[in-house]
């Protein structure tokens, strides 16, 4: 995409992407309690190593500290949050209220998600809200930003100006329709896309080829999702237990092929090789590193992936 200097939000991530630089974002899961220090500690590993950090929203449908609250702690630690919001837990009133509140207190990026089904989490008997879906949530955030209006049509006094993110899973079915669903998210108003963790590189290359062919990568910034494997067990779990995940056998074999003490490093090596390829791949504008409960490894991974130093804007 061509470089731009007109910004729709006050987001650092937006500046990085619009300046044409390769973006590098991280992820931070809020605690299952009220321990602020736990968030601060994770944040310190990420600070200076990523452009923005996704703060997950009751990830895998397990109750955690609310994503906006953890986002504010991240801001306090000098990190830029990417506030995740799922459709599972809020109706349209709560969504709009949280967007106003989040923006008022300094949140500038949002990632709009459907959310894992509540059956996967710690409250499987909960009622899933799903008042609107993720594509409609994207359109909602855009309407609030660009038209300054609530869904009701009523005017917003000082509208929230969010940089709008969405997710894409190139590995879910039907494969040939994933690009069309991506197109819908762009049409709804997504500024950037973070993909599901990529392990099947041939399939991802094909997805990006189709997205390039459709002209989608000219309309949206795509950040490839990368999660380094910590162990063979994790790779097996991802391959068989996580919905929408595609882990080829050769990844598992490569991890199995090294000494046990070197498996984690091999996982990082695989991730860094992927990042190298993404840097050169037409239509990919950055990487979203999801180092799940491995935040302390982010500085080392960022170093090895040669994505440091991160750009700084005045």
């Amino acid at each position, binding site marked *: 995409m061509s470089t731009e200097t007109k910004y729709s939000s006050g987001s650092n991530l937006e500046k990085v992407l619009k300046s044409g630089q390769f973006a590098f974002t991280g992820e931070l899961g809020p605690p299952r309690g009220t321990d602020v220090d736990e968030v601060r500690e994770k944040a310190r590993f990420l600070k200076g190593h990523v452009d923005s950090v996704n703060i997950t929203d009751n990830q895998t449908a397990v109750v955690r500290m609310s994503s906006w609250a953890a986002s504010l702690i991240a801001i306090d630690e000098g990190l830029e949050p990417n506030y995740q919001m799922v459709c599972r837990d809020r109706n349209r009133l709560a969504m709009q209220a949280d967007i106003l509140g989040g923006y008022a207190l300094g949140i500038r990026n949002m990632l709009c998600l459907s959310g894992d089904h509540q059956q996967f989490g710690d409250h499987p008997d909960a009622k899933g809200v799903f008042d609107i879906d993720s594509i*409609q949530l994207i359109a909602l955030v855009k309407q609030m930003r660009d038209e300054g209006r609530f869904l009701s049509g009523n005017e917003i006094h000082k509208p929230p100006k969010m940089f709008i993110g969405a997710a894409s899973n190139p590995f879910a079915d039907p494969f040939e329709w994933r690009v069309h669903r991506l197109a819908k998210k762009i049409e709804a108003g997504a500024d950037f896309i973070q993909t599901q963790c990529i392990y099947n590189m041939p399939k991802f290359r094909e997805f990006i080829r189709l997205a390039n062919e459709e002209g989608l990568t000219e309309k949206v910034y795509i950040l490839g999702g990368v999660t380094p494997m910590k162990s063979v067990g994790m790779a097996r779990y991802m391959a068989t237990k996580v919905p929408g995940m595609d882990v080829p056998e050769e990844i598992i074999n490569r991890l199995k092929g090294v000494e046990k003490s070197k498996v984690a490093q091999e996982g990082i090596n695989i991730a860094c090789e992927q990042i190298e390829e993404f840097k050169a791949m037409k239509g990919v504008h950055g990487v979203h590193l999801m180092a799940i409960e491995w935040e302390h490894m982010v500085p080392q991974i960022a170093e090895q992936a040669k994505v440091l130093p991160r750009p700084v804007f005045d």
Partner: protein
Amino acid sequence: MIVGEQKPLEEIWEMVKVHKQLTVFGCNTCVAVCHQGGNKEAGILASLLRMKATQEEVDIEIVDSGIERQCEHEFFESVRDLMNRSEAVLSLACGIGVQFVATKYQTLPVYPALNTTFLGDVIAVGHFTEKCQACGDCVLGLTGGVCPVSRCCKRLMNGPCGGSSNGKCEISKEIDCAWQLIVDRLEALGRLDDYEKIPPLKDWSKDRAGGPRSFKLEDM
């Protein structure tokens, strides 16, 4: 049709055992099709309850009966006397029938023998599946005749989500991904362009969000 499933016998027994007389009352339309609440099932359930009463040495007179539909006044004409001498009714109707009895006979205790489960069809003998949520604002015209409200576990209007795999839903391999079915159907109809359209937000005020619904024919 409305599909229901009989409650466990123990749960039913705990509700009704305090009475001296009980009418086990079938509803011979929807819930008869799924072999849970028809007049025949009322007879079987009455027998089971009599056995239970004998086992527990509880003195309770149990009779069984039934009508075609427990949701319309006219069908109750034939059981007027029975209702008058009943001390309590165990209704095998859906929740609608149970409430109809409760409203019609203000001082007569009525208990549900069924859990009303869903609005569905009979895809094979003895196999019933949910197909409608009575959302009050039908979108089947947009989705190729496959309902995302009742059949997508997240009620997505723009699916499939990232959990769709080999045509199945992320929550169970037993559940078809509704959006895979929608895409397949639109393709078969040569209407794939419809997939690209973003539908308007769902108006849930026409669903239960707007409170209990009703409509009245003006010319009747």
